[in-house]
């Protein structure tokens, strides 16, 4: 599905307060969630970003304003201490059915997602006996297995091991490449760095777009550039790269008639898949594994922000916590 497809959800003048005279937690929130968009929401503790996510996920209704165009939604909570009397596989099959899948398909995808997260061995383990990390993998799998049009992640990475975090990054990029919208909150500023289409900050009960690039004030640091992957691909002679590639890669001429595509690392799998399955397919010459962000003069999708200090620079393939 192409990015930026017509279907989109819109929050129009949305406000939320609890009780008739309670203070406004959120006011006059205006937000478009286009199909195929990856949106990051930031804010201090208690700023109302969780309330915003609950409104986006349809768990809560706005006191004022309207939310229109809600697509099929899935939600991942921060902690999933599910004391439910199911095995992991049975729970995921139930959730797949609730998402509208038929039983065999739900069971197949449940097994597939558990395997993808390296938890296939726990398929028959009761949820109550799972470790915190494996529980969180189940929480993530229940949201991803039905391919929702809108995925809402409330610090879903917390509690996952580094490998599973990378997997979730790629699964998110995959959802976005397939035309789904993803809205996430994470305390790690490097989470999906460079991959998000827009950033928003919740402060004083309002939603402020965070401008990308040097236009941002000194207080608001521009989005840190995350690890990137560089793909050298060769298409049919004279043809431009396919339109609307996942991750909006930066294209530059490469050696020997190739095109060099630089993309946030989380999007690299989705980009490769799109190139290989294009009509006609593209040939992949080289793939350079995710590395530290390029220097200030390297070509980039966005003007780079201030150089990240050494210890915060993400090592290849992992997303350290600050």
């Amino acid at each position: 599905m192409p990015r930026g497809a017509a279907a989109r959800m819109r929050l129009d003048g949305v406000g939320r307060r609890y009780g008739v005279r309670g203070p406004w937690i959120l006011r006059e929130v205006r937000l478009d969630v286009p199909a195929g968009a990856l949106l990051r929401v930031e804010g201090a503790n208690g700023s109302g970003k969780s309330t915003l996510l609950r409104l986006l996920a349809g768990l809560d209704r706005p006191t004022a304003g309207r939310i229109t165009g809600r697509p099929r939604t899935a939600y991942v909570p921060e902690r999933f201490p599910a004391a439910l009397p199911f095995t992991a596989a049975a729970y995921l099959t139930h959730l797949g059915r609730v998402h509208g899948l038929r039983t065999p398909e739900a069971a197949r995808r449940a097994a597939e997602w558990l395997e993808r997260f390296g938890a296939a061995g726990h398929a028959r383990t009761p949820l109550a006996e799972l470790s915190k990390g494996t529980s969180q993998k189940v929480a993530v799998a229940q949201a991803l297995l039905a391919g929702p049009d809108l995925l809402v992640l409330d610090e879903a990475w917390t509690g996952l091991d580094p490998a599973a975090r990378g997997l979730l990054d790629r699964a998110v990029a995959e959802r976005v490449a397939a035309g789904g919208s993803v809205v996430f909150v994470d305390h790690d500023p490097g989470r999906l760095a460079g991959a998000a289409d827009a950033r928003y900050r919740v402060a004083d009960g309002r939603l402020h777009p965070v401008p990308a690039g040097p236009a941002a004030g000194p207080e608001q640091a521009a989005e840190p550039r995350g690890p990137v992957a560089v793909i050298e691909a060769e298409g049919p002679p004279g043809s431009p790269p396919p339109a609307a590639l996942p991750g909006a890669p930066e294209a530059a001429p490469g050696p020997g008639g190739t095109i060099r595509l630089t993309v946030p690392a989380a999007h690299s799998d989705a980009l490769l898949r799109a190139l290989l399955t294009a009509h006609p397919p593209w040939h992949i010459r080289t793939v350079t594994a995710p590395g530290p962000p390029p220097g200030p003069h390297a070509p980039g999708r966005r003007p780079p922000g201030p150089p990240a200090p050494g210890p915060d620079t993400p090592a290849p393939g992992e997303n350290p916590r600050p």
Partner: protein
Amino acid sequence: MTASLTALLRYQAALLARSHRWLPPFLVYAAFLAIGVQTGGPILDAYGYAAAGLLPVTVWLSRICAANEPPAARRCIAAAAGPGRAQLAALLTAAGAALLLALGGTAFVALLSDPHSADHRTAVPVGPATAAGLLTALVCLLLGGAIGALCSWPVLRRPGWGVPAGLVAALLLLVLGASPANAALTGMVTGSERGTVLMPWLPLAAALPLAAAAAAVACALAARRG
């Protein structure tokens, strides 16, 4: 949004069955019947007794189903299906479990009781008496479900208040003359005295909108307090 209510009901029913929280209300109801339904007792009185006991048990089952998931799991379901539908599925699952009890209790009474009036002189037709007994049980089930929906999350959220509020409301509905449950039960008792079967159509017609309204309130609030 696209989730069918069937999938939700299946999930809630599995949750209730596997959690074993259904066991205490089922045991209590079985004990209630075993104590109060006598072999050879008048059939309409026994049906009234069985239906009266079903009301607080349905409150109990509804409270179990309304809060059978940890909040995180409830939110995952609610995002997929909508909080209102998720809550409706929980309440319907409780009603289904109570219906099983109603059917079991009715069969128990039909097997043991004597199809005669209270003074054992006038014969009471078993078929219509059983139908009236089932309808009376249904009235109590609907009202118990309504109280259960209103005395648990998301309507009543103070911990510790749900059980006393539910018990008092169940008792009031059984004894107050204006309540459909009381009207249906009185009909069974007077029918037993006279040896005639009185179908509780009017109480049923009153209980249905009450139960629907209570469920609607609970489902609407579930969408605001997720």
